[in-house]
């Protein structure tokens, strides 16, 4: 399988604290890679280093062979890397469709053509398809603030896929979502992978969700990579059990 992203020896230090310590891995085309680990293991910091929100102390990130370490998040997004955040990050004042159009508009033409072009940047059709895919059709013209938490999580995930990215990084997509919506979210993400061939990396605490969704899992503990493999192997790994249950 082709490698989409290579992460090499990423290290992030905050003063004397090493939040991420020499972590390396590849993301292969078409896979759903899960990154798990106990609280404070450095998962989100690793994401932020990969995505330009934080400058890594050491190490490199390559996207399809091109070095992208330290690129601004907006430039990285234009190269085809999209993300969601641990906390909900939809735009409450905009409708569901407007949120999706916003998520894709910067990939349409130049700043000048967007100013004089159509109001929806030619994305209404694509937004409606995405809305249908994530089963939000009955809420198309509702403001995001009027949606339930689970529906907002679905919208948040849909926004990450709107620009047809090469790679999507989802930071705790299942956090705070009720069981009904969780099932719907997992089903849609799985469909996005099998039907659309989307490649993504998921950070998650919900083990059941990760085991059911991901094809490969990395385990972080105290900033270090301690295990890697398919869900069944990782589940049996003594180091993982120790990291989660303690000494």
């Amino acid at each position, binding site marked *: 399988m082709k490698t989409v992203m290579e992460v090499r020896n990423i290290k992030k230090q905050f003063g004397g604290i090493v939040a991420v310590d020499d972590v390396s891995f590849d993301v292969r085309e078409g896979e759903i890679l899960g990154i798990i680990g106990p609280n404070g293991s450095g998962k989100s910091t690793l994401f932020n280093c990969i*995505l330009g*929100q934080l400058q890594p102390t050491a190490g490199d990130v390559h996207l399809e062979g091109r070095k992208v370490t330290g690129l*601004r*998040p*907006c430039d990285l*997004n*234009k190269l085809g890397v*999209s*993300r969601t*955040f641990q906390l909900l*990050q939809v*735009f*409450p*004042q*905009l409708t569901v469709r*407007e949120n999706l*159009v*916003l*998520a894709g*508009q*910067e*990939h*349409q033409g130049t*700043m000048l053509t*967007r*100013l*004089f*072009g159509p*109001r929806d*940047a030619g994305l209404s059709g694509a937004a409606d398809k995405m809305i249908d895919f994530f*089963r939000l*059709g*009955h*809420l198309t013209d*509702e403001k995001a603030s*009027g949606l*339930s938490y689970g*529906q907002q999580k679905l919208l948040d995930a849909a*926004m990450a896929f709107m*620009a047809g990215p090469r790679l999507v990084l989802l930071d705790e997509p299942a956090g705070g979502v009720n*069981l*009904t*919506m969780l*099932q*719907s979210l997992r089903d849609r993400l799985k469909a996005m992978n099998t039907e659309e061939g989307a490649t993504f990396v998921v950070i998650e605490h919900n083990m059941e969700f990760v085991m059911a969704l991901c094809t490969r899992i990395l385990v972080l503990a105290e900033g270090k990579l301690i295990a890697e493999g398919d869900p069944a192997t990782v589940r049996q790994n003594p180091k993982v059990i120790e990291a989660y249950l303690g000494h």
Partner: protein
Amino acid sequence: MRRYRKPAAIAALTLFGAFLLIAPQLFKPYGVFILSTWVVMSIAAVGLNLTLGYAGQVSLAQAAFVGIGSYITAWLTTHGWPFWPTYFFAFFACFAVGWLLGYPALRVQHHYLAFVTLAFNTLVYLVFRNEEWLTNGIYGIMNVPRPSVLGWSMNHPHNLYYFLLAHLVFISVMTWLLIQSPWGRAFVAVRENPIRALSLGIDTRRYTLMAFAIGAGLGGIAGSLYAPLVQFIDPTPFALTLSLNLLLMVVVGGSGYFFGPFLGAIVAVLLPEWLRFAQGFYLMAYAVLVVGLMVFCPTGLLGLLDRIFSTRTTPPGQPEAAALAAAGPASEMAR
């Protein structure tokens, strides 16, 4: 109430538009002058609303841009230039100054940005006052000529009022188109959540700069129209007080609402005039009213109206039921 929102807005706009058209027939020259001032200040406030209301950048420099626009038109037209080139020059000069100021200033946010822009306003005011070779200092520039359009002179107050009103309509339409475009959506995204906006590929720095520079340019246009209206330009009107007044217009009207600045300008420009019956107490009455307004509706007048007209009339629970139905039978079981 939600269903009455659009008809109520259309009715209010129609009535207000009709009033603006016949207003010169209803007022004496001083009244027409005050209305003309409202028009000019509305344009400056529309610019500030773009910067503050839509892009979320607190600026206390709008008076400086109004001043730069005024001085450009006043100086050039008194030196024989026709009005129109000075008008466009005022816009582009203020746009450029706004862009140049924005580069360093927009590295900071919120009250820090307010302080930087406040300092810029003070600097520009001092230039107007002290650089006599350019601005004639405190003596100002007198006898600023009024423009004429296709031989139609603006010397009559009514003509000038309609001329200014036409500008307000044009600028409002242009601003409306801007905020309805993908740029407007990006401005809102930058204001609401810059980190998420960045992750969606929105170059927050460039959009913020654009909003700041366009807002400054509209301040320049307001200034360019202010000069022929008052026909005498001196530094005093462009001190910090005007910036604070413009900020008041945006906030009182409803920051981030398209018609907020128009309503805010009514409060800031017309209300003190209507309160003159209170004689020596009129400014105190004005202050009390504004404080009361901000205490009881901090989102501004349009924020208050929005709250009233957004009240649900459909029974609560319907959207939730629709969502569960759409999620399929499993959700029904879960319920």
